[in-house]
């Protein structure tokens, strides 16, 4: 069950991790600024397309079709990639995928690889495995570079350094980037320029690159990488060897399907009509780009997720991060509180499923990291009903906890009370008596009600519940 990396060892359960994040005022300010900017922009980019809802439905249906026939599509993809000169590898888990990439890098005779931002490789902690194997990886995406230089953790799917503002990034560059100009300003343009200069020589001399994939087209074997900075193009075209690691679910059946996703993804993600660069390649093209192409197909918990009829819709995800940007919980805690490379609403349903262990207290706390407000579902370009899956996974967490937990006992008691009107009314009378003593408003309740009254007053049960009034006046 090697699913290492999906959640970070040692991260506390969500409520505790959130508490720390909530008191970080700089983090709160950075997140509020970034998420409110992107929310408005996304709404504008989406409003431009009159057929947005139809595109969402098509995206949902295409991805559901992929999942329903995943075995056949993967075989088709493998055949198409192989026919065009690529080599396909299969990995059951993180360790297996890391070993494949390390072996290929060594065979290519390199002592360093350049990397395009890839969640799948973050998930399997490929960088750590490569470093341990003596072939360090250099992150080339600006935000990934910021995280790597700061020995930090990612906090967003698209912009892993969203928790850092421009001043913090400038200070980090001055400290950790030997070639950064001494008078580096905190202007985003200057920071981008510093990253360009820092990585230029690495790109031009790299022999091996590692990437992820946004989409793979089963019938043609074409791989799609969507990006902004051009670091992706550098990695995908300059080195002699390209290794792409991709979750088994990231397929579309046919070329035409991209017409849906190349509209849904950029507008949902960076709120652009189209991202600056999209690269599409099929196997190896003689005289243009890498001479060797390897595709590593990664399971790492995905097939377990696929087995859950309700939970499998999480595998439709195209990693746009729109759900993070609109989530009121994410906005306040940031991504690191989720203890996983997949934060926010999608992370709350994906991470525990990939890990597959609801006895893990941290993983089991993630489905509760939501008020079920539904903003995530509203923006999801592939219509993942995240609240539905959250509730479903809460069921699994409850099951794992057993029927003897204090909460389970309280829920059973409440269920018993609600099972009959007489019991309910008796409970109301008991509560009403307590209320008569305490008055209309309660300032302090015993645990677990104390968690409510720490910041909120609570109403006392009414002296005359509604049903008593009804009986008295209408009965």
């Amino acid at each position, binding site marked *: 069950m090697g699913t290492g990396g999906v959640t970070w060892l040692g991260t506390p359960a969500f*409520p505790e991790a*959130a*508490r720390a994040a*909530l008191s970080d005022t700089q983090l709160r300010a950075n997140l509020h600024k970034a998420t409110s900017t992107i929310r408005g922009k996304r709404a504008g980019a989406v409003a431009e397309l009159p057929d947005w809802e139809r595109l969402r439905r098509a995206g949902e249906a295409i991805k559901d079709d992929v999942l329903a026939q995943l075995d056949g599509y993967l075989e088709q993809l493998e055949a198409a990639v192989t026919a065009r000169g690529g080599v396909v590898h299969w990995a059951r888990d993180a360790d297996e995928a890391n070993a494949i990439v390390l072996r290929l890098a060594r065979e290519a005779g390199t002592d360093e690889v350049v990397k395009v931002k890839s969640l799948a490789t973050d998930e399997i902690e490929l960088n750590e495995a490569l470093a341990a194997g003596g072939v360090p990886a250099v992150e080339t995406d600006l935000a990934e570079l910021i995280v790597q230089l700061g020995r930090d953790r990612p906090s967003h799917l698209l912009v892993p350094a969203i928790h850092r503002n421009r001043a913090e990034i400038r200070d980090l560059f001055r400290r950790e980037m030997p070639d950064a100009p001494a008078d580096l300003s905190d202007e985003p343009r200057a920071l981008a320029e510093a990253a360009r200069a820092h990585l230029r020589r690495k790109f031009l001399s790299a022999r091996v690159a590692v990437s992820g994939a946004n989409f793979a087209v089963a019938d043609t074997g074409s791989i799609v990488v969507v990006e902004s900075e051009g670091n992706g193009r550098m990695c995908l075209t300059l080195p002699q060897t390209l290794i792409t690691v991709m979750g088994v679910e990231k397929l579309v059946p046919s070329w035409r399907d991209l017409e849906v996703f190349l509209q849904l993804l950029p507008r949902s993600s960076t709120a652009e009509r189209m991202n600056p660069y999209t690269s599409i390649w099929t196997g190896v093209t003689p005289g243009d780009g890498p001479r060797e192409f390897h595709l590593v197909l990664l399971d790492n918990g995905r097939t377990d997720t696929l087995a859950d009829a309700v939970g499998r819709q999480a595998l439709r995800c195209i990693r746009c991060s729109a759900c993070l940007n609109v989530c*009121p*919980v994410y906005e*306040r805690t940031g991504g690191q509180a989720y203890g996983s490379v997949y934060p926010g609403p999608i992370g709350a349903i994906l991470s525990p499923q990939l890990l597959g262990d609801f006895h893990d207290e941290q993983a089991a706390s993630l489905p*509760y*990291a*939501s*008020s*079920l*407000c*539904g*903003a995530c*579902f*509203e923006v999801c370009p592939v219509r993942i009903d995240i609240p539905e899956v959250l*509730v479903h*996974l*809460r*069921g*699994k967490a*409850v099951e794992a906890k057993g029927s003897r937990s204090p*909460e*389970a006992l309280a*829920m*059973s008691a*409440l*269920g018993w009370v*609600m*099972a*009959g*009107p007489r019991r*309910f009314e008796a409970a*109301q009378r008991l*509560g009403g008596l307590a209320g008569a003593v305490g008055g*209309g*408003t309660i*300032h302090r309740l015993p645990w*677990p*009600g104390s*968690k*409510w009254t*720490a*910041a*909120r*007053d*609570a*109403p*006392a049960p*009414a002296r*005359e*519940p*509604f*049903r008593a*009034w*009804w*009986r008295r006046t*209408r*009965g």
Partner: protein
Amino acid sequence: MRVALFVTCLADTFFPGTGRAVVELLERLGCDVDFPMAQTCCGQLHGNTGYRQHAVSLARRHKGIFAGYDAVVVPSGSCAAQVREMHPGMVGDTHGAMAGAMVAPTYELSEFLVDALGLTDVGAYFPHRVTYHPTCHSLRLLQVGDKPLRLLRAVRGLELVDLPGAEECCGFGGTFAIKNAEVSTAMLADKMRCVQDTGAEVVTAGDSSCLMHIGGGLSRLRAGVAPVHLAEILASTEEAPWAPAA
């Protein structure tokens, strides 16, 4: 029209004034209102916390109790959504025999008034400055849209002020408010700031639960803003105006 009131366990126990307001309002509008005494809870709390079995039993109970009316009216977007959106899946997949039973359509209050009765002016009078919080489940699960606002705009004497960031969750979320109390409180703080910025005396909504949350926070701050359910505003008339609970 024979209408059953599903008052919700929360309003029944803590906010009976909301239930009384619905009865008075609907009777004033000529409905024949009944309150099936066997009702308790729709099971949302259990369902949303992960206790599906309990939720399924409560859903099944609920369905049996409300069969045979022309309509069921609920002064809660959240409970209406539970009954309309969640119960069919729960009752259907475990209790085949029930699936076919005649079920009255369940309406959230503003939906019932606007869609079923075709009214926006219900003859109410409420001379106060009011801001409206569209609760998440009314907004996103039921998609009530601007129905509550249309009803409020027709209330005489009422000054309606826009709530900034209206569509943001108040942080209630059922057991979320306890299990993730700190995050919930952070969300509530922003909601309260927006409410207070409007200068309204009254914050209203279609859900007692969210109002209990927002109102509980405002009360703790002694903010001087009263949480009042939409039903109580619409039930208020010049002859029998709304008065704050003693």
